């Protein structure tokens, strides 16, 4: 009995190493950056809203034993497709946003199915496969909007098209959606702004993920994640469960990206989705998740730790080394390094 307790304690500490390291790094960064704490808190809250859903989208594939789903970038692309289509038809406000979500989700379901089917042929190599899929999808997406609009796709809104008549501008304004959600139920406490509606939205997604893991489907996903061979013997259709896991992830990522973009207020058509996968993965892992186990608390804790570090590190670097680039490189190193480290530990 004593032995049992002891091992559990050690395991606990081990799992927490990454968040603890991030905590101290953030703390040190906060100290050296000399940034205003209320500013950092405000920013972290904003980051929580922007990136929360995207990070949550990683949980289900990890539970299904497929590792980090770098293909959430494709979910993000779906979101951008949805937004661009709505912009093209100039449907503004909440209605437009709803339409954008619907279109994005339809694309996400379709592409998610494709990703899932492909990943069923890449058991054990899902992660590298999803990375390459992300590259592939990015290229195709970029050029469809660069060349497609104005040639084989008709456009309806001159403002988002380049003056040459072909291709979407690299930056489009989302003024028609601006502040449709962000400012709802915003409360000011001291110098800290808390947009309750958006926070609740992120929590709602966390609840949805939590709910799914508690359903029959969730139980199947878990079983597949523990051991897909045995899951098959237990009658679970492993392949379709894996496809479903990826679809859920892609759809969640799609909605996450819509939240992200509408919060920023402008859409960088060709680049806004890039890195959404890396940063989300790094944030999740910073919260103590591993490539085999991820929970909602890891996601939430991770967003706070990782983004605090991200917010303070450039200035911390500048103040310590009198060279802002150092903080900059350190930050990128941390993002990629966190993922590399998570892959190295069991």
């Amino acid at each position, binding site marked *: 009995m004593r032995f049992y307790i002891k091992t559990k304690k050690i395991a606990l500490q081990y799992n927490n190493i990454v968040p603890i390291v991030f905590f101290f790094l953030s703390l040190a960064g906060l100290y050296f950056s000399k940034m205003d704490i209320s500013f950092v808190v405000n920013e972290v809250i904003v980051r929580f809203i922007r990136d929360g859903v995207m990070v949550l989208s990683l949980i289900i594939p990890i539970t299904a034993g497929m590792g980090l789903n770098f293909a959430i970038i494709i979910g993000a692309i779906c979101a951008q497709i949805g937004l661009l289509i709505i912009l093209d038809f100039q449907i503004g406000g909440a209605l437009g946003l709803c339409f954008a979500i619907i279109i994005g989700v339809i694309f996400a379901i379709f592409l998610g199915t494709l990703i899932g089917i492909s990943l069923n042929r890449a058991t054990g190599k899902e992660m590298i496969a999803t990375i390459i899929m992300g590259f592939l999808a990015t290229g195709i997406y970029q050029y469809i909007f660069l060349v497609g609009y104005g040639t084989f796709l008709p456009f309806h809104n001159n403002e988002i098209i380049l003056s040459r008549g072909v291709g979407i501008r690299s930056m489009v304004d989302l003024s028609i959606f601006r502040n449709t959600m962000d400012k709802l139920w915003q409360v000011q406490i001291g110098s800290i702004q808390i947009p309750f509606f958006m926070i609740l939205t992120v929590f709602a997604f966390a609840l949805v993920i939590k709910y799914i893991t508690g*359903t*029959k489907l969730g*139980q199947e996903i878990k079983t597949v994640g*523990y*051991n897909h061979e*045995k899951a098959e*013997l237990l*009658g679970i259709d492993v392949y379709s469960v894996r496809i479903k896991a990826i679809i859920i992830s892609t759809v969640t990522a799609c909605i996450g990206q819509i939240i992200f973009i509408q919060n920023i207020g402008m859409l960088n058509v060709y680049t806004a989705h890039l890195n959404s996968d890396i940063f989300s993965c790094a944030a999740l892992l910073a919260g103590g998740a591993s490539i085999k186990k991820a929970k909602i608390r890891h996601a939430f804790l991770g967003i706070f730790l990782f983004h605090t570090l991200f917010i303070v590190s450039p200035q911390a670097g500048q103040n310590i080394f009198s060279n802002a680039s150092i903080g900059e490189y350190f930050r990128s190193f941390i993002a990629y390094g966190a993922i590399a480290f998570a892959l190295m530990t069991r």
Partner: protein
Amino acid sequence: MIKIKNINKKFRDIEVLKSINIEVKEGEIHGIVGANGSGKTTLLNILFGHPNILKTGGYSGEIFINNLKSKISRPNDAIRLGIGMIHQEFAIIPEMTVAENIKIYRENTFKLTDKIFGKNLSYIDKSQNYIDTKSILKTFNIDLDPSLKVFNLSLNMKQFIEIAREIDRKDLKILLLDEPTAILNKEDTVSLISILKKLSKKGISIIYVSHKLDEVIALCERITVMRDGEIIKTYERQEFDSDNISENMMGYKVNKVINAQNREFKNILLKFNDFSVDIPGETVKNFNLDVYKGEIIGISGSYGRGNTALSWGIMGLHKTKGEIILNNKKLSNRNVSNILLNGIYMVPEDRRGAGLLLNHSVMENIIFTSLQMKNNFLMPYPFKLFSFINKQKSLDYSKKIIDQLNIKCSSALQKVNELSGGNQQKVCLARAITFDPEILFISEPTRGIDLGAKELILDMLISINKKKTTIIISSSEIDELKRICDRIIEV
């Protein structure tokens, strides 16, 4: 209830099941007995749609459930048809709780969410599952907290969880059991048998596979005897006769190689003292053995009993305890290269997975170990590590040994992948002969090989032994061991 018609199954070029016909009635307990490798498990796997069957090319023949022709290609199909299976290597997820394992795929869910989201996305009612599990465990007289994680439990408790999971199914019509008592003690076996009898009274058909004859006789209404993938005979209850049945199980074969001499040995070459090996699913505990120079020892036992674990253990590839004494010296540094240099060589049971470089030529396979460990077949350059193969020498040698062992290949440069199972095994042996070890461990030398080749391989082992190599054979074919070994040890 279930009718199997003309089932045939091939693994690569080996026929493992030949026109199998079995019929099991409603509520009948049907026993299938046979030696290891007779095809019992393969038959159950076909009935349950085990994924490996499809991956290895499927089967031919027909299966009727309730007089309906049924296609079973995945476990899911079998489960939908009301078939349940208790696997020898448990289909249990150790990281999940007892309740989760037992209620898996059939969880209780809340009615409300059922209506809103449908069954699949309905929320699981954990407390109901807990209660259900508790009550099903009661039928076994087990008082266990269903919220415990399974990896904390003992082996026989896991066995009961596996059984409980199937019995809990309300739609269960046919239950397949594969060696369910292998790890159970007497008492637990008795309680299992009584449960099975209750089930059969409910009208559930049971197919019970075991090699423990007395158990099968006590439990079953009919018994089918299998040997080498064929049905030898099906006995009705009134015809049961354990002598006849066991004779059917063993059978006799023609042209047997027999190591006729009654030899005597004096010098102890190798000693195992309290030797334990821990391989998942295959363990040896506190094993003691003296191996005399020049003898052939057989180690018999079925799968999971550790007869192959010994050789993996001595090669230092798994965790071991205890000591090995070679030539009166303790063998302490047990990395593989040191063991090999001490003259111990092992031919593994998994030929394709561990014994051969399938994409390489016969020659490369034959010389590999000698080349790497003894620098044989190298050009005479000073830096051995970066030296090239002496191709002429290797080729000449390979040709010689190919002739000697009668390996059927187009040339020494043919890829091993293209050879038949028997010839592949010969290549494995050729490598062993080339290495010229003092002690040879060989596991399941005749598994998956056709009859004629079997005898050749056994013959070859005897001739290797005659050249002063001590041989330790692990095999589940007790009959073969009896023929060539000086001693047989049961583990």
